């Protein structure tokens, strides 16, 4: 039961193999028993989960047949949940209980899903290893000397460890796809604007996007259908019909045109990762796809442009944490300036401070044109690279990350950490969707295949990923409990 997909669990509930309460209790007990070391949850909401499970069981007895009703999931602690601590992985919000639910949380509740709790993450989603969390690092369930990736590391680890069949994540520069790859699960970053950002604590508003993390593309399709859609409370969400993401899952891949960006197979790519990805491509060829090389010529500019734009927006988004209205406040401030300085010095960790400083600098008078404006120009070029590539091919494929999960504490300097996102970051700059699916292992550590599509081509991405998962069983592997305990 701990490693079943949402689709399988839904069947079990329907068949009466187990109740929602039994399922939920079993997962909560497992979290209690095993998460002490993994550290994938910041807050477990046992009581709320159990009463929601009881309500779901009663509703099912009365004929509730909604596909996701009674199924548990975990929620990244970046989404506001009413009356429950929403920390964003930061000391700054350790005492913050949101007075409202994020739109996606509302939608999942409306679909009948049960939240088990809030998962660990890099502080304010700034990181690629989950090591910047105020609540301590998360360990990779496959190998506890390794990071789970980040920033949605808690969500990915919880799924891999058999704590939750699915989770919500967010992705600003790879924060769903890279931890999905490191933890051997499936994670989808939707098109920017496909999923409401209301109630999702902002890191970099023009790049942030929430999305599903689960054990299969099919499960991601279920979840995306539940959370996608226009939200009047988010002006950047797009008023566009949400298709039935399950409808195209089984479409054959005959004649699918796959582009391999040559820039994604260059220097710095681990050879074991590369051979796993090449092997996955061969699987696609066997399914009838045509493969060719393409170029995304501005790829080398993606990381620098991202590390101008994202910190710039973050420096402004994080100004509200000033100790005046909510969150951490320093003891006995002498005056206003002291209040600001000590509150922020105490409340934020090093990586957050580093990005606030970078962002403040790049927006400053005299630097704006050289940094921010230039980075926006680069962003347009990167977007155009993808649009040009999609004139020739249907989807792009490559590795989700240059290596498998690295060791905890291994990346000491920020830039080597930033380069982790070299294959994921451009996707956020372009606003297109991307999915990472399990595609093998290097030793104990999983490898993720990244598939990229055109704006709003989630149905196609899910179809392409699902067909791979019909032909392979990488996504059905899970760490044994012996390795976990």
């Amino acid at each position, binding site marked *: 039961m701990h490693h079943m997909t949402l689709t399988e669990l839904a069947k079990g509930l329907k068949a009466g193999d187990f109740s929602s309460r039994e399922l939920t209790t079993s997962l909560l007990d497992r979290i209690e028993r095993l998460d002490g070391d993994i550290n994938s949850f910041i807050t477990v909401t046992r009581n709320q989960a159990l009463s929601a499970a009881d309500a779901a069981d009663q509703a099912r007895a009365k004929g509730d047949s909604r596909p996701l009703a009674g199924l548990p999931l975990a929620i990244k602690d970046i*989404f*506001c949940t009413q009356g429950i601590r*929403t920390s*964003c992985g930061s000391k700054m*919000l350790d005492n*913050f209980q*949101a*007075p*409202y639910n*994020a739109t996606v949380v509302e939608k999942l509740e409306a679909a009948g899903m049960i939240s088990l709790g809030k998962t660990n993450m890099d502080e304010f989603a700034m990181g690629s290893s989950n090591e910047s969390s105020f609540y301590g690092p998360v360990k990779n369930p496959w190998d506890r000397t390794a990071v789970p990736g980040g920033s949605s590391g808690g969500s990915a680890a919880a799924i891999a460890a058999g704590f939750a069949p699915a989770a919500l994540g967010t992705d600003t520069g790879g924060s769903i796809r890279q931890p999905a790859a490191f933890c051997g699960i499936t994670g989808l970053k939707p098109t920017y604007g496909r999923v409401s*950002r*209301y*109630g*999702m*604590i*902002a890191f*970099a*508003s*023009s790049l942030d996007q929430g999305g599903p993390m689960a054990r299969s593309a099919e499960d991601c399709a279920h979840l995306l259908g539940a959370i996608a859609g226009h939200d*009047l*409370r*988010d*002006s*950047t969400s797009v008023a566009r019909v949400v298709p039935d993401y399950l409808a195209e899952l089984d479409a054959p891949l005959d004649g699918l045109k796959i582009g391999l960006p040559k820039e994604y197979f260059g220097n710095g790519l681990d050879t074991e990762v590369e051979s796993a990805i090449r092997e996955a491509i061969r699987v696609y060829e066997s399914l009838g796809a045509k493969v060719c090389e393409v170029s995304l010529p501005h790829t080398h500019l993606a990381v620098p442009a991202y590390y101008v734009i994202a910190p*710039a*927006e973050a*420096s*402004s988004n*994080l*100004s*509200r944490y*000033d100790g*005046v*209205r*909510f*969150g951490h406040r320093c003891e006995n401030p002498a005056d*206003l300036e002291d209040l*600001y300085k000590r509150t922020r010095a105490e409340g934020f960790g090093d990586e957050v401070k580093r990005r606030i400083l970078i962002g*403040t600098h790049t*927006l*400053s*008078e005299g630097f*704006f044109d050289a940094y*921010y404006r230039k980075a926006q120009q680069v962003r347009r070029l990167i977007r155009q690279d993808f649009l040009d590539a999609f004139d020739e091919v249907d989807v792009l494929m490559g590795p989700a990350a240059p290596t498998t999960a690295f060791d905890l504490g291994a990346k000491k300097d920020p830039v080597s950490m930033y380069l982790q996102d070299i294959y994921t970051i451009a996707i956020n700059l372009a606003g297109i969707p991307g999915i990472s699916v399990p595609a093998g292992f290097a030793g104990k550590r999983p490898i993720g295949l990244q598939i990229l599509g055109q704006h709003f081509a989630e149905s196609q991405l899910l179809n392409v990923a699902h067909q791979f998962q019909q032909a392979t069983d990488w996504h059905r592997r899970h760490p044994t409990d012996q390795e976990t305990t």
Partner: protein
Amino acid sequence: MQWETVIGLEVHVQLATQSKIFSGASTAFGAEPNTQACAIDLGLPGVLPVLNEGAVAMAVQFGLAINAEIPETSLFERKNYFYPDLPKGYQTSQMAQPIVGKGEVEIVLDDDVRKRIRIHHAHLEEDAGKSLHEDFHGMSGIDLNRAGTPLLEIVSEPDMRSAKEAVAYIRAIHAIVTYLGISDGNMAEGSMRCDVNVSVRPKGQETLGTRAEIKNVNSFRFVERAIEFEVERQIELIEDGGKVVQETRLYDPDQDETRSMRTKEEANDYRYFPCPDLLPVMLDEAYIEHQRSTLPELPTEKRNRFETSLGLSTYDAGVLSSTRPMAEYFEAVLAVCGDAKQAANWVQGELSGHLNRENIDISNSPVTPEQLGGLISRVLDDTINGKAAKQVFAALWNNEGASADEIIDARGLKQVTDTGAIEAMIDQVIADSPVQVAQYREADPEKRGKMIGYFVGQVMKASRGTANPQQVNGLLKQKLDDA
């Protein structure tokens, strides 16, 4: 040396939307602190702004009213700075691409000279909350009710040359926004706040002097006095060999002086950048034309029409078009009575006198324009004379009757124009005043003119004021002179 004053103004107009510019919270004035601030106004983690379309419509209407360019695309940006009553740590405003482009406003000076003041642009932004520095034992209280209230900041070119011109300009802006109904224009409640840029230069010099910005001046009178003080200060400073520094100053109405708040070196770097939470505002031709179709007649147009089509004096046209309620009242009176001059006289005379005495706004006048128009009609058709008309007005003011006609009837104030009836009264007066009649008849014609007043008074008294005075006069003359 002869000095020339140069003034530019930034006027912040609070727009009269029901809800805030980026949230659904109410904008009503005067509620208990922090009761009209929702999660968005508080800047809670995760919240997002949604633009109030009403504020956009109002800004566009203002732009059309000043013949400004309305760009197809405008953009919201973040102005970043820390302040306790600024919840998000940035103000959402507009900088590079404001919603209203270049336009102009006509002002009228005392001697009826007209001058055009160019508008550089106008942009939408959100207001901050208020910091309350009293009653908190060495701390400050924060009231966020005002946070997120929509403001239209109207930025003029430095086209004004005196405090009087600046005041005339603010009055013109006030008239436009209240005519449009996009603001209540209530300066006491902060619905219009001005930042005044003042500099001086030797007369004839082309380049501008260094300016000081006087922040948050909140009444017509204070604008005038702040400028006068500041001009004097700058001239004295320069003449004493000093230099004006670019700085922000505060006007203190109690001391009637401006004081330095911060110099340019201390100014914030606001790090403006486009707000990623809001889409660019795209306005097409159809939308702009629709807004144009909703525009009322504006103060300048009205004033010109009052002068040219109604034949009013420049002064009367100016007063009657100065506010929309005044103009609407006047036009409603005119619609009933049909005589512009009479309507103008009554509105500016008897009515304004009563309103001013009791400090009542014309929109709350106890005498309705229909009532006043009805009263004037009865004067025009000679039903009552001027004296009775004042009685009727007083009765209407005191709500002693529903209409002029009702009061005229009830009090028998209808003017007597029946020659026979007037003659009978005259005969009686003549019969009762033998001495005066004799004196009159002995007097030379020059003196008679004055002496006839006595007889008129007696006849009017006998008629309880209802006799037509012209008729009384004519008939009396006949009877006394012809004998």
